[in-house]
């Protein structure tokens, strides 16, 4: 019997328990301090591999509070003492930097953040864990996994105008439900793969956890090779595909040409509706960015829609590039110029308004359309606010009108 991508990377069959060495273990500023506390409590005095360990200061950066500043100091001290990598305020979101700098096909990556699954786009078995698991993985250089069963998602056709990877993953989460893939690996296949860019794949893998999945894997192919080369890591490429006779628990098919622009309504990600059912919902804020949709292609989309136009006067437009590299390229290409001229506020590379710690906390009764991955009650800092999720194109179109708008109509 052949193997799925998850089984190939973990080298065992689904259901087995494996203790595996990790190629990268990382933590960020809201989960890192507890990981360090647990590490120090464990009595394991050293980290296994400083070069395979990274700390990212991205979730609340620059720090909005004294307590957070002290947490950041703790992370910096730990990085100095252990000689691990540290990425500072303004460098970017952990998942984007992992894609740009670390993730290679066949890697095993664990991070103290649920969206660690993003690196599945590069065919890395990448999954989120809590602080104690990450503390132990740092110390031992390994962790344990149960090898997951896999759902194969077969993609055919091409996106029509105005429809993007975000609409695909929102639609899939709507079909699966918030717990429809709990514990499973999602593996993407089919004839459309070759046409999905790395940026699109990262958007899709990023959100598999919103259906409960443990990992969201794309095969390693020419798209992977070309992305790695663009990041100066062409040598890290190796092709990696599932076996033709791999065994899947479930097989689903999606024709990209059948998709509509999609919107997740408050307060769960799987509360997905076509944009036609959301039209006219008034917005006080639009937020474009995050590990889901803060990449160059996303900013290009938004800038092209907003170029020469203005945001609606009563709708704030916040834009946070996912990394310094993205910001610099967006400046060079003129996207930042167009966005600022349209009335956007450019925030530093990082998680920004996504999780309600700073840089765009919502007021009572306010509504925000965000390109992020979560719209749980209270997510953007206020349980009395409403969060809608959509693509950067829908976000940009909606910023112009001040209400949720089909991007094909602007």
């Amino acid at each position, binding site marked *: 019997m052949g193997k799925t991508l998850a089984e190939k990377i973990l080298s065992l069959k689904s259901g087995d328990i494996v203790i595996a060495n990790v190629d990268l273990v990382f933590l960020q500023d809201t989960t890192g301090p507890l990981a360090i506390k647990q590490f120090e409590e464990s009595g394991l005095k050293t980290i296994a591999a400083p070069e395979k360990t990274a700390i990212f200061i991205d979730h609340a950066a620059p720090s909005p*509070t004294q307590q957070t500043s002290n947490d950041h100091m703790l992370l910096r001290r730990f990085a100095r003492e252990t000689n691990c990598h540290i990425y500072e305020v303004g460098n970017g979101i952990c998942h984007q930097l992992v894609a740009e700098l670390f993730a290679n096909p066949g890697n095993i990556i664990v991070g103290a953040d*649920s969206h660690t699954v993003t690196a599945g786009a590069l065919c890395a078995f990448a999954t989120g864990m809590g602080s104690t698991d990450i503390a132990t993985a740092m110390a031992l250089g390994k962790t344990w996994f149960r090898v997951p069963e896999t759902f194969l998602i077969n993609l055919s056709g091409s996106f029509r105008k105005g429809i993007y990877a975000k609409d695909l993953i929102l639609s899939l989460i709507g079909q699966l439900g918030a717990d429809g893939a709990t514990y499973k690996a999602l593996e993407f296949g089919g004839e459309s793969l070759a046409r999905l860019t790395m940026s699109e794949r990262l958007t899709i893998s990023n959100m598999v956890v919103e259906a*409960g999945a443990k990992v969201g894997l794309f095969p390693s192919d020419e798209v992977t090779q070309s992305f790695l080369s663009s990041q100066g890591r062409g040598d890290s490429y190796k092709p990696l595909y599932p076996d033709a006779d791999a065994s899947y628990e479930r097989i689903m098919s999606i024709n990209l040409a059948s998709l509509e622009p999609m919107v997740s309504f408050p307060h769960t990600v799987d509360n997905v509706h076509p944009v036609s059912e959301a039209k006219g919902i008034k917005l006080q804020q639009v937020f474009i960015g995050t590990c889901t949709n803060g990449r160059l292609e996303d900013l290009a989309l938004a800038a092209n829609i907003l170029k020469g136009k203005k945001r609606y006067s009563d709708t704030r437009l916040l834009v946070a590039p996912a990394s310094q590299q993205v910001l610099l390229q967006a400046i060079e290409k003129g996207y930042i110029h167009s966005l600022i001229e349209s009335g956007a506020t450019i925030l530093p590379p990082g998680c920004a308004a996504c999780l309600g710690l700073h840089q765009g906390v919502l007021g009572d009764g306010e509504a925000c359309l965000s390109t992020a991955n979560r719209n749980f009650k209270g997510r953007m800092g206020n349980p009395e606010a409403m969060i809608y999720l959509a693509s950067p194109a829908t976000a940009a179109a909606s910023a112009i009108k001040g209400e949720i708008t089909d991007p094909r109509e602007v």
Partner: protein
Amino acid sequence: MTETVLKGKAIKLGDNISTDDIIPGRFAHLRSNLAELSKHTFEDLIPNFASRVNQGDFVVAGKNFGSGSSREHAPLVIKMSGIVAILAKSAARIFFRNAINQGLPVLLCDTDQINDGDQLEINLTEGVIRNLTSNARLTSTKMPPLMFAILKEGGLIPYIKKHKDFEL
């Protein structure tokens, strides 16, 4: 070492309780001050949660308990509130693992058989839950032996202190 027979009262919750419901992200700046952080447990979902809990009670939820963020502070503050086990129809993967790592048992079973306020007796070794109020007997899904070993030691840190490594 976690006690293997637990007795207490059920506090019934619904489906899809996220880690933001358990401990809202806006209190992230208090995460290095657990005593302060834990005052906000379930703040947006259940007013006066702390006053409803007696030491030894159980949280009994529907499907997909603990979905969302990887914050281990979620099971940690539930444990600090006096809750000694969580029963749910299903639990999000990261939350499940985090709870076990904190020595807080999560039992997956048909929680429709449990009402708010029911008295329960849980045998962790057998994975059996007896509803003393209704006399129903529930069995829970078996967890992998390694996970049960971690739980029995009281969590991953005590497990690692003792074993120095994972043992299959």
